[in-house]
Structures are given as C-alpha cells and as structure tokens.
C-alpha cells in the first residue's frame, strides 16, 4: 500500500474497516484503529490510527493519534502524534501534527502546523513545485 513502509506507524489489525465499494456518511468515531479504502463524507475521529488507502476518497475532517494517508482527503487533518502522507496521498486542507512526514510526489494544499513542543529552527521544509499542481510543501525527509 505504501512505498516506504518504515515511515508509517504500524496499524496492526484495524478494528474498523471501510471497504473499497462502501460509501459512508456521518461521523465515524472509534477508540481503535480505522482503515478506509472507500468513501467517507463527514468526520473521522479515533484515539488510534487512521489509515487511508490509495483508493480512498475522504471528504471529512480527520482527528486521530496517527494518520497515514495514501488516498485523497478533502478536509482538515489533525494527528496528535504522527501524520504521514505517502507518494500517492493528496490532502486539500490544513494539517496539524507532532511529527510530520511527506513523501516526494505527494500533493498537499493547505497550511501545516506543528506541535508547540517542536522548536522551529529544527524544521527544514523543502518546497518543490510540480507541474499543474498546487503543492505547497513537499519535504523530502521526515522532520520532527
């Protein structure tokens, strides 16, 4: 699913899974891990990890401990710990995380906010512009 697996937090067996052909509307709330391969329109909230597969299409705000994105998200994403955007991932919205990882080729259009305990001088974001894209920030490596 992801090119650089070692960059992602292991999800184990997800407790909630939205399959490829499923269209979900409303608030999907869980204490455990959530995997989305289908469509979600609404909101996703969990104390665990949200994994958004390459075929997933999310129109929702996402709030979780860890968020792994390989599909498309239209909405704001808050990861209280780690947010990973893989090569095929696309986010149209603001993101907030303690640890942020964006792979080359990912598309991110929005504002990014790091947690307050991360000192600003340590963050080195490399901006790469792609043809016909609205990529704003695409760092090559994970920074804390």
């Amino acid at each position, binding site marked *: 699913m992801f090119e650089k697996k070692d960059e992602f937090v292991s999800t184990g067996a997800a*407790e909630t899974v939205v399959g490829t052909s499923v269209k979900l509307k409303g608030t*999907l*709330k869980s204490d455990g891990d959530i995997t989305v391969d289908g469509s979600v329109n609404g909101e996703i909230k969990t104390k665990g990890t949200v994994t958004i597969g390459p075929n997933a299409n999310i129109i929702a705000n996402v709030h979780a401990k860890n968020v792994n994105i390989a599909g498309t998200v239209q909405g704001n994403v808050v990861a209280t710990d780690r947010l990973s955007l893989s090569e095929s991932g696309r986010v149209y919205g603001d993101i907030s995380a303690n640890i942020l990882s964006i792979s080359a080729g990912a598309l991110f259009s929005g504002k990014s906010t790091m947690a307050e305990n991360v000192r600003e001088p340590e963050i080195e974001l490399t901006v790469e512009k792609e043809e016909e894209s609205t990529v704003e920030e695409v760092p090559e490596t994970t920074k804390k």
Partner: protein
Amino acid sequence: MYYYIINPASGGGKINKVQDKLKDRLRELGIAGEFAKSTGPGDVARLTQMAIDKGYKTVVAVGGDGTINEIINAIGDHNVALGIIPMGSSNELANMLGITEWQMACNILAARKVEEVDLGLINDKLFVTAASIGFDNIIFGMKRSQRTGSLGRFGFMTKLYAAAKAYKTIHLELNFDGKFSVETDCFNFSLSNGAFLNYIPQKSKPQDNMLDAVLVSHLNFRDAVSYGKGTLDLSKKPGQVSVFHTKKIKITSKDPVVVSADGKIVAETPVTIEVSDRKLKVIVSKKRHF
C-alpha cells in the same frame, strides 16, 4: 436439577447414537435431572416453558444453535441458566464456550461455571451467535437440506456452484447507531455477537455489549464457492471486507430480503438489529474463547 431438552433432529440425528451413554454419564455425575424430547417445530420452546413452570433453574440444550435459539427466546426474562450438550450440525455457541463434544459437556455441566453473555435482538426475537443477510442464508438453506438427508455431498457442491454463479449482490443501506450510514452492494452482511464466524475479528467478545458488523461487498465465482465451503480467508481480501462495531443498526433494502439469526430465517428487511438489554446465563468451560 437440570432439565434436558433433546432435539432428535439436530445434527442429522446424532443424539440417537449416544443417548444411552449420555444418560449413563449424567447419572454418574449426579446431574441426570429430567429429559424431554422435542417432536417438531415450536416444541423446544414449549418444553422450555414447561421446565420454567416446573421451577427448573437450568435448561440444557441437547442440540445445536437452532435448538439453543428456541430455548433462549423461551427463557426470556426468567432467571434460568442455559447448559449445552453440542449435537447440532452448527455448534457455534458451544465452540465459543469451549464445549466441543458431549463427554466434555457433561463434565462442564457438573462443574457449573456460569457466565453472562450478550444477546442480540431482531424485532422481538433474540439471538446469541450471529445474524446474516445475503449468501449465508443460501448456504444455511442448503445445510438444512443436508441435515434432512435430501441433499448429499455431491448435491451440496452442485447447488453451491449454481448459487455462486447466479448470485446477485444486494444493495443495502445501513444506519449505525444513528451516527453514520453506509450504502453499498453486498455479497453478505453479518452481525456477530462475538468471534463466532471465522472472519469476525478475534477481539470480538460476547460480553462487550456490541455487535460486530462484517460486510463482504463482492466476491468472484471462485471466492464465492470457497466462501460457501467455509474455506475462504477474508483477511486476504482487503478492500472487499468492511468491519464496524455497533449497538444498534437499521437495515433497509430496495426489495425485502430475508434475515437469519442463529442459522434460522427470522425476519425480512427493513429491520432493526440491536444488543438486547437481556443477558443470557450460560454454563461455560474454563477453556472458553473469551
């Protein structure tokens, strides 16, 4: 004292071969109690009511999940525990409770360790293992025919191939606890009260006050046949399987489709399925799977 309800039709008459040995063993253990034999549909419920009226505090199902389903619905709110001597063609509950064969069941009954487990509710009918919509119900029908002897092994496989080839997915709308809704084409949809089905996550417990919903969106012919034979590993079909957890679900479909519980057809869509306020007291093994 124990009241034993023997369903002679369970498991293709399995009980008839061991009945005398079973009674001897129960006598040895000092838990022989009273025996009653059901004679037809609805009789298990009538016998359970008779046991309750006589003041028995334990009713033992000598049969499978279908027999148990009739007993739990007859027990209702009464303070009566269920014991199980597995003799059915489907013994999902007994297996979950760690009761795998009749000799072991006798010892477990004598030890009498009682646990409370959740019950599911479809309209006004209780169930203890799982409820299903879709391909499962075709398989249940074929297995019933096998039990009655009208369908042999070859006939079962022939029917399974035909069913897998002709099967059309069902379009379902599911509303979970009024919080979110799901729309999808469905090969099979199950709501389980624990890890009763081989594709239910093992974390699922019959004491968590939740039902685990497993939605299989689509399977090709080959996989559908494997599913019918019970050999398909759904964990290797990512994207085709969805899993949710809920206390209450409302299920609607364009045309009515049948809903089964504990392997028996009990309702049609539209239907609401939920965790019941009632709990089932049941005698369990120390080796139970929860």
